[in-house]
């Protein structure tokens, strides 16, 4: 696994993503400054969480104009796997690589907690090590994670099976109580039609080690490693 971890001004989960690849997966990780016009030699691009440009204007709205985003779109166009986590997901939405938008959480507060996710697809580069329908635990930490799309887009997402993760209870049921932020259809993560660009609000890179509460995030990185093999 050779991962390019993009650092925007204000990214703050870049270090955790770097460590997830380098320390926990034994892969190669490289930071890529947002001003770079091209990506280094890599087989995975990670857009990490944080507050790129301080979330000023709108989450991800300024970062999408960073020079590196051209190269990221090109990499995705060639079928390379792109993983956007939290703010990275928001940037993917703003740059049009994924459909929809993020609203402020329905409780209007930042939420740091651990949630259950139900995988809806296990045939993707990011999910091939997960068991379908069986929930796994990862932390969330966001204020704008309330996924929104118009009815037509939402119907299309569902029809194309682009919804990858839903917030659910411990039994894997995506109920209202388990929806932390008000996302439509309990959506926690979606992919593009081709299935090589994944955006997700929860943080798998924070769940790499039992010592810190959960190692379930490894399943996503192990899936990517398996896909790349």
């Amino acid at each position, binding site marked *: 696994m050779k991962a390019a971890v993009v650092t925007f*001004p*204000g990214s*703050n*989960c870049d*270090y*955790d993503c770097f*460590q997830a690849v380098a320390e926990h997966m034994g892969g190669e990780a490289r930071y890529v*400054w947002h001003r770079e016009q091209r990506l280094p030699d890599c087989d995975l691009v990670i857009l990490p969480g*944080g*507050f790129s*440009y*301080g*979330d*000023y204007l709108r989450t991800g709205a300024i970062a999408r104009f960073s020079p590196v985003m051209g190269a990221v779109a090109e990499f995705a166009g060639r079928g390379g796997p792109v993983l956007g986590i939290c703010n990275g997901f928001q940037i993917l939405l703003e740059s049009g690589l994924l459909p929809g938008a993020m609203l402020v959480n329905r409780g209007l*507060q*930042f*939420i*740091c*907690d*651990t949630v*259950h996710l139900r995988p809806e697809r296990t045939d993707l580069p990011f999910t091939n090590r997960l068991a379908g329908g069986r*929930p*796994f*635990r990862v*932390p969330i*930490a966001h*204020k704008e994670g309330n996924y929104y799309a118009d009815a037509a887009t939402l119907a299309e997402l569902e029809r194309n099976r682009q919804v990858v993760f839903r917030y659910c209870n*411990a039994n894997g049921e995506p109920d209202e109580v388990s929806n932390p932020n008000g996302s439509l259809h309990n959506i926690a993560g979606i992919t593009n039609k081709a299935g090589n660009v994944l955006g997700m609000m929860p*943080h798998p*890179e*924070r769940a*790499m*080690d*039992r*010592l*810190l*509460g*959960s*190692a*379930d995030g490894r399943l996503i990185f192990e899936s990517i490693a398996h896909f790349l093999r």
Partner: protein
Amino acid sequence: MSNHREPAVDLKLAQSFGLNAEEYRRILAIMGRTPTYTELGIFSVLWSEHCSYKNSKPLLKLFPTRMKQVLQGPGENAGIVDIGDGLGVAMKVESHNHPSAIEPYQGAATGIGGILRDIFTMGARPIALLDPLYFGELSDPHVRHLFGGVVSGIADYGNCVGIPTVGGSVFFDASYTTNPLVNVLALGVVEHSKIVKGFASGPGNDIIAVGATTGRDGIHGATFASEELSDKSAAKRPSVQIGDPFTKKLLLEATLELIDSGLAVGIQDMGAAGLTSSSIEMASRAKTGIELDVSKVPLRETGMTPYEVMLSESQERMVVVAPPANFEKIKAIFDKWELHCARIGRVTDDGKVRVKWQDEVFCEVPVTALVDDAPVYQRESKKPAYLSKVARFKQSTVPQPKDLDGTLLQLLAAPTIASKRWVYRQYDHQVRTNTVVLPGSDAAVLRIRGTRKAIGLTTDCNGRYCYLDPRNGGAIAVAEAARNLACSGARPLGLTDCLNFGNPYKPEVFYQMKQCVLGMVDACHALQVPVISGNVSLYNESVTHSVYPTPLIGMVGLIDDLSQITTQWFKKPGDAILLVGDVTAKPDIGGSEYLKAIHGKVEGKGPRMDLKREKALHGFVLDAIKSKLVRSAHDCAEGGLAVALAECCISGPPLGPLLAKGGNKGVVRGGIGATLDLAKLPGRPDFKLFGENQSRIVISCSPLVVGKLRTLAKKHKVGCLKIGKVGGRKLAIRKLVDLPVAKLKESWEGAIPAQMQ
């Protein structure tokens, strides 16, 4: 020449700057002439309580500060203790009480900004924030406004800069109604070889301003922090700075890159009193002089005067001292992070502070006059009359509640005791993936990457105990912090303190402060914990009264191996529950949350502190944890033994890891029950359930090791009593309490959200 015309200086102006007549006369004598307007401004901020510690210095000298683990004691931006492996931890606590009282969101946010700069200017990467907060009663709508604003200010700022907020405490009492205490502690990790100090050394070196631009915000913030709040304070809202966490994040990364590069000889943050205190303190430490041309400072507003530039407290700025040859390379680092970087002066060898606007001099004062000649006062101390009144309290006169179940539920819902999940759920406590024990246990625990070690962190101070018996209360604050660390498996290494008191010119307030400090000194010696840094916040007063004396303690401890990390909640059905420490003492409800919340009284002397017993207890717990005999350990604090037991049942993480194989059976949503018998403990039922006697810890262990623990307790001369076992869905204390765990959890977790909706 500039076209700045300065107002005339006289005593009246000096007084409006917060100086008194005696201090103004002293300035005239030092200068041998009337100071200029800029000079007077500089004197007034550097001689303010906030910068000069003029009323607290004689007390601060009493703290033990030198022990072998101390790499940097008080006097720098932050203190540093050694944790081995060539690493140290830098730590400091600060207050932002007055700004938060009138502008809770920005006040709290900029408090974080300031303390982070103190840490990374030492060369340390910040890895944790803790926020000890004190508010009035939550039933008061204004208090809810302050509480909500402070928490969201902390959340928005801390989350954005990407430093996890891993702990803290929230205490509610009417004494803090109009003057909340908003303290913030930051901690960072630094390699010994990379420790940087705030020295303006090497005459001829550049003085460089980096970071954000300078505006008119926060002028005289340090002075404002050094006077009482009044009904006119709202008019001082412009003295509150505005935070920009995004720029702070850039500044943090750029500064750490600068330190890594080795290009700078000294770095100092611009905090209280801005450019004035940062540049002058650096010159004072290095025994040099400085010459600044403030026309070169990057400004965000037009028409600013030298006085305004020198006194601005605009956030996200630092001062760097470096050889002129390095300037272009330094500028390249700050350019990359899109921050300002401008040469604004140079280090001189004449020992003077010279402030110019191009060629015109606006200030020329010896550094020593500003720093070393700052006044130091030995204030008058007088025992307050209330102390003998509250001490007359007889606990036998307190009516015994009929329904102890109901009383316990009421106490669990008292905001000071209730779960603070509503607060910490708004803080990112996991970013940078080091947080092993999340908020909600006795102490937060962070791993130290690249080692098998971890550190425990806690903040403590029960202001009510300090109010009822300042010396005893001061000792308890230190002892409880150390006890919390011991419960998590950590050996205390050092503490930082924030001395929050009222107006020191009131002899009764100074008495409280002096006695609290003496109590802290007693405990520091007894428990062998040095003071490595701190902050003093005085004039915490409302129109009618001072806040409770609140010497907040932040303490860090070392856990030698990750396997020794211990949490407070019960783990496994069938485990034995032991009460260890001072188990035979007569229960004391003086100063307790029970007496206040249930009976509406703040009386008594507060629980007694016997430091020798306390020390023995810590030794025992650490020894037992190291010997792998302990599955959980929890300190008995507010709410007494009953609340401690309830917390052991309900405070654990709500769910076990789903994909984990085994190991978590029996742990269900809502916690785990326990069956207990307290017949062997002396005293009336309500007293033994809710009395807040010190030096006691509830531990749980495998039933197979109870004998071993008893032997170990005997060796440490510590009491040890088996009081029950873990299991079931109820907290059942024979003849006293019988409650479903789910109900305990509902009261405890629901209380604060219900008030804040």
